[in-house]
């Protein structure tokens, strides 16, 4: 395939750096009374989604004995606890800005431990398991923190509890985050799966999460900030979705047909 391929390290670096930078700019801007930059946290979440999707792609090429979805649920299960721990710790020590980084570090640690458990005790023996679970859990934290910060417009744990958890908006964020990480690979399962198609699909899934989080932020943050997030989310979704369709056309080749009977030889 002539398409450029990204290595795992490049994707991880982009995911973590863009994710954290987005969350921090949004959080700092919000504390300076400018909620309109909240969408940047959503963009961070989009890149983090891509990082998780690539890790799912690598680990699932080994056949993990159960469906692809379970690994995404595992990631978000670990992710939600770590993300909230990071934010709460920041609040407890009056340093809200350490929150997302602490959450990420904890998630990487739990991911490593769970990956080791899966390999050493349950004996899955998948060589990339530790690394991929770390990436998936890290992506889970960044997605959850990013979208929560975007909805609440703050990195303060108390504000997030009140605006995101008590209202229950955490539920769509949780499940859209999980689907964003696991759906891109699951939807492209097959021998002719290509990395660039899966990853552009990850962007589009991340953008869906961002759009829905934007809708939620209308009610709790600021209507204008919410609408900015929705418009940007929809724009990213449209561009990446069209890109996905283009790559489907490329990969399917002559098999991309408007209508028709079964291919020659199969009738």
């Amino acid at each position: 395939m002539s398409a450029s391929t990204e290595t795992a390290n490049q994707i991880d670096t982009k995911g973590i750096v863009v994710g954290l930078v987005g969350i921090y700019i949004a959080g700092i801007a919000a504390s300076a009374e400018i909620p309109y930059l909240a969408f940047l946290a959503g963009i961070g979440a989009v890149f983090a989604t891509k990082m998780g999707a690539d890790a799912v792609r690598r680990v699932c090429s080994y056949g993990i004995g159960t469906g692809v979805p379970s690994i995404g649920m595992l990631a978000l299960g670990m992710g939600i606890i770590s993300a909230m721990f990071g934010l709460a710790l920041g609040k407890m020590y009056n340093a809200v800005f350490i929150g997302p980084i602490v959450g990420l570090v904890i998630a990487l640690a739990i991911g490593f431990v769970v990956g080791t458990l899966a390999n050493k005790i349950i004996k899955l023996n998948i060589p990339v398991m530790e690394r991929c679970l770390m990436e998936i859990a890290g992506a889970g934290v960044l997605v959850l923190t990013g979208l929560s910060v975007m909805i609440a417009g703050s990195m303060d744990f108390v504000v997030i509890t009140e605006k995101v958890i008590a209202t229950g908006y955490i539920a769509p964020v949780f499940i859209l985050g999980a689907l964003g990480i696991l759906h891109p690979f699951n939807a492209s399962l097959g021998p002719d799966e290509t990395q660039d198609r899966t990853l552009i699909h990850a962007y589009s899934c991340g953008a869906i999460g961002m759009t829905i989080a934007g809708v939620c932020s209308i009610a709790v943050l600021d209507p204008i900030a919410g609408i900015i997030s929705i418009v940007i989310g929809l724009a990213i979704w449209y561009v990446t979705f069209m890109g996905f369709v283009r790559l489907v056309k490329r990969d399917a080749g002559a098999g991309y047909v408007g209508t028709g009977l079964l291919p020659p030889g199969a009738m």
Partner: protein
Amino acid sequence: MTDIVTMLTMNWASIIGIVIGGICIAVGVHFVPVGGAPAAMAQATGIGTGTVQLAAGSGLTGLLAAGYMYMTLSAAGVPGISEVALICATGAVGAMIMITVTMIVGNWVYIYGVGVPPASAKKDYDPITGDPQAPYVAAGTVGQGLPTVCFVSGAMGGLLGGLGGSLIYCMLMWVNGDPAISSIFAIGVFLVNAVLPSYNIQGTIEGFHDPKFKRVPKAILACFIASLLCGIIAVTIPGAAMLGGA
């Protein structure tokens, strides 16, 4: 002002509860007879879906019942041990109802829709009823439907799953007193403890009579460590009220 050390020393009992809950879930997952994808084609004994999904579906249904019961009981003050027992029993029974109803309707579909008698290929005779199994296994399959032993095993799995989920919820409520935070964390811990055993099962299991059931100690060890870690982290997260918030 709260900090991590005080949170940990105050809530050590909750950590133990979360670990016990996690282990209950891990063992419960092994009891649930899941045939995975082949069962959906009546090609394997068990319920035709994935381990995690079914365990989560039943355990979280139990969690809903337990959450309601917790609210009712906490009207008279923070629930003590005997109330927690009632809450966990409520959650466990809620999960049992969900899973038994699913299995009975699943069996309707197998018997009336697909036209197969329930049979297991892992045992020659049903350990509970003593019925012969092999003559009723269709050619080219490894059993189909849910014979009595699988059904009973599934009910026990629901019991343990619901119990574990409700226990984790109660323990978290002791710590932060906020149903919203506790429910979403309980879902998180539940999923971690349901996915790890499903890797141990590798797709399909018929229940406690399945040879794969012998692998259960490995899952217990893995889930012990994983839920200990989750427990330590989760109990250091206070409710917003303790941080002087709304």
